[in-house]
């Protein structure tokens, strides 16, 4: 019975050591996580707005462009992807 206990202890010690080394090697090769950048303060003062045309009287040339744009750097997106997604259905 004693010999079996010793074998199990030795086996656990070896397995723990191998696991520790494997984890160390894995982490040392992992790409460093990149942080996200806040871009919410990019608002630009826009010109005064005109009222929206009523239904049936839309004139595509009558209104001003009053929303702004910003571009997105789309690198490394697989690093950070939450469960909740929105994209229409």
């Amino acid at each position, binding site marked *: 019975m004693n010999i079996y206990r010793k074998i199990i202890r030795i086996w656990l010690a070896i397995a723990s050591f191998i696991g520790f080394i494997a984890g160390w090697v894995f982490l040392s090769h992992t790409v460093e996580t990149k942080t*996200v950048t806040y871009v*919410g303060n990019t608002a630009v003062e*826009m010109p005064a707005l005109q009222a*929206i*045309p009523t239904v049936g009287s839309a004139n595509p040339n009558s209104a001003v462009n009053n929303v702004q*744009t910003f571009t997105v750097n789309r690198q490394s997106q697989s690093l950070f992807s939450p*469960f909740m*997604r929105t*994209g229409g*259905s």
Partner: protein
Amino acid sequence: MQYHRFRAMNTAILLAAEGPQSAQAFEAAQNFIEQSEQRFTRFKETSELSTLNRSAEDWFTVSPEMLDVLILALECHRATAGLFDPSILPDLQAAGYTQSFDLLLERDSDPIPVTSPRSKRIPFDTIDIDSLQGQVRLPKGMRIDLGGIAKGWIAEKAAYKMAEYSATCGVNAGGDMFLIGQPHGQPMWEVALEDPRNPIQDLMILLVECGAVATSSVVKRSWKQGDLQRHHLIDPRTSEPAETPWLSVTVFAPKAVLAETFAKSILIVGPKDAQSLLDHNPDISFIAVDADGQIWKSPVEKEKVYEYA
């Protein structure tokens, strides 16, 4: 956070909840969503909506749920200057959307016929609603589709069903979502904004407090009708699928019905008039994506938007 996925309303549903009673929360929400789908679908002859559509010119007693959605639909119709209009159903069918989208996609070898132009549409605000008696009367010739509002309404109601079991929970019905509480270990909910040009990619992460997020897209539900490329967002001013430079619009709002109906309306009007739509609705903000991948957003945006570094 625990998650539960299933399919209903012809779209993927994702429920999220924290705490030991998540399972009960999921069960309550799924039951509610499946029951509501039976009530509001236009693709089943026996649904309450189909029965209502056959009752034009007669007073029809509706369920409290249908009455609530119709009253909200009328309010949203007025708030969007008529751009959200459930009475576009005949136009939607004329554009080829005559069956559920899952079935429509299976028609590859069976082309959708091109139909002749329709006669003049009857505006939704001509509907009669007697909220005290719980009765509704559609004008002659009016048939309505609640697909543009019911999904958001269902998502919000289902989220509140879940909130009886979990203080932090959310419902995502095909991109129309309602979020309650603050996720453990996070300042806000993280919502990935899908790239409409490539749906397997995300454009950015949106950090959203409690409330509603909804996206309308001209890409997802689109099909060929003859030589014409069609989609499901009808512009009530033309009775045709909307011509817009934007591929998708995501709206943030305190109520799901507002988020869903404004997302459609803003997508229809495009960049020239989008902000004007929000003048009387300061609680609503949006992000739009155009065909070049350029992102547009309303000047007033309470949410913090983070891009990938």
